């Protein structure tokens, strides 16, 4: 059973990572980040179930809390960028460079 869960977790993580790398829309990139976080959560919970203790479960909760906080800040930033530049593309926001 564990193997299947872990494969699912890996697939979800890979999809999330690809989304971050490929998509330009900041909202989608953000969603993909959430997908990666939750893929990790799945892996934590799986291992916790297999080992038989609660530590992985607890960490999953921590990740969710952090992700929630991150969503608040991240969405605020994205909305502000959209308001000022009329675009939510991550490639357009490239002023901070060499």
């Amino acid at each position, binding site marked *: 059973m564990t193997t299947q869960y872990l494969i699912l977790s890996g697939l979800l993580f890979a999809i999330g990572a690809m989304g*971050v790398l490929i998509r330009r829309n900041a909202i989608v990139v953000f969603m993909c980040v959430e997908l990666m976080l939750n893929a990790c959560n799945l892996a934590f919970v799986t291992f916790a179930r297999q080992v038989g203790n609660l530590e992985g479960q607890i960490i999953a909760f921590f990740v969710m809390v952090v992700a929630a906080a991150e969503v608040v800040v991240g969405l605020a930033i994205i909305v502000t960028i959209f308001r000022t530049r009329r675009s939510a593309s991550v490639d357009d926001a490239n*002023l901070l460079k060499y």
Partner: protein
Amino acid sequence: MESPVEIVQHTAGGVIGLSWLMIVLPLLGAAILLVLGRKTNRWGHLLGVAMSLASFVVAVLGFFALIGLPDDQRRQAVHLYEFIPGMVDMGLLIDPLSISFALLITGVGSLIHIYSIGYMAHDPDRRRFFAYLNLFVAAMLLLVLSDNYVGLFIGWEGVGLASYLLIGFWQFKPSAAVAAKKAFIVNRVGDFGLLVGMFIIWTSFGTLAFGDLGAKVNGVQDGTTLAIGLLLLLGACGKSAQLPLQSWLLDAMEGPTPVSALIHAATMVTAGVYLVVRSGAFFFPEGSTAALAVAIVGAATLLAGAIIGCAKDDIKKGLAGSTMSQIGYMMLGAGLGPAGYAFAIGHLITHGFFKADMFLGAGSVMHGMNDEVNMRKYGGLRKYMPITFVTFIVGYLAIIGFPLLSGYFTKDGIIETAVHHQPVLGWLAVAGAGITGFYMSRMIFMTFFGEKRWDADAHPHESPAVMTVPLIILSIGSIFLGGYLILSNTLMKFLAPAVGRPTDLPVFHFASVPGLATLALVAVGAGFAWFRYGRAEVPVVAPRGSFVTTFARRDLYGDALNESLFMRPGQWLTRIAVFFDNRGIDGVVNGLAAGIGGTSGRLRRLQTGFARTYALSILIGAALLTGALLLVGNI
């Protein structure tokens, strides 16, 4: 031989206790003139003269206070303050030797001050000139009055500084600036010798005070005292322009003429003779190797200076050559032990008078001839400058040793003592006297006799009284002083408490063999000069002359020697150092900086600003890390 008497600590008050005023007054004058600056322009020269004269008055009073004491009390140490705790107590030593110098320095110095009022009347910087003159006098007085080598050294350096400032007084002339630097640097070589000599004295004997050294050295002569003696001699050579450190003296003529008179007559060049005589009892006793070295240096220099003097067309440089030569006589005398000291100091004093007389006379001539110094453009000046002519003639007769004038007694004393103690050097001195007769007569004939060879715009005239009165006073001293000092051994008896004296006082012979030989040679020299420059016409443009003339004109190749031995190798050394600095040290530093700068310039291109690129690099990094961990098998 009688040794110097013990130094007694001065306790009573009186003039001797106030002798520090001699140094402080001119120093104060210099300070006021320099600090208040232009505000003192109107009366600055008067203050300078007043301070110098006040110092002279203190010296005269001190002299009379000293001769009022019995012989064994005539070395009075005046303690001033603790200078370096446990090492040097600053104090003054008032004894016949130092007071003789003090009288010469302040007396002739004051006359030169007075003369300068007239000579520098048209110079906008006259006030600064007097400040430096006062500084010069103060430094020289500290040099001769100090009771230890450290005080002497401070005065020694002060004299060097003042001479630098005065030689380069017209610093807008590049030649004057260069001459000042040259005098300063050549003097540094001598100062190095004096300083190292002082170091050895301190480590060997544990004292630098003249009063304690006698007991510590105790007449012992070994390698240490010889080394000290030679190092002190090096110092004396620097200040007194003796071979091999003579080269600065001729260039020092770039300064205003009163400066030349001050340097040559009253101060500066006499310091070396003073050092040798003052240290005589410790490091240059009669018959020691160091004393012989002093005598040899003196004899060599008196010939070299005389030869240089023969070929100079510049009146001041001719006189400078003669100074070298006369100081050579003094050094020769100082190298003969107590028998020669009185004659050396006597010649120093009379030379102070007749050389100041002639330098100021030369200044007076230049003053009337639009600052022309080339004697080939003088001629026939005796009718136009009668006072200058007469006083100059007196100085001239004194320096060539015309019988019964000052120079005759003192120079003849040195020659006879030298012939008696060191026959070879003595007869060289006789020859030098003959050459002196030639070059001084040449100067007289070219300047005051013969046809007029003036420039078209020259209007020679007699100088004002403020310049001629000092000349007259100096020439009176040039006539009578020598006979007074030498004939009944007045000076030798007076100096004995300070420097010792031979058991048998010398008797002055008017018809001794060396004396008559000297007179004969002087007459031949003067006659030859008349034959060449008095009777014959003097060409306005200097003829090429033989190789001997060129040799003398080029100062016996002294400058060329210094240049090839010291200056060129020094330049090479600096060039190598500069090359190494530019290419080696700068290369490493600059290369490193350029390398870092270039690399970071390329590396910063990685910061593209695209968030997705960063994400990709994070992913690749994480993947590599995971792969590496898997590979190591450490999970």
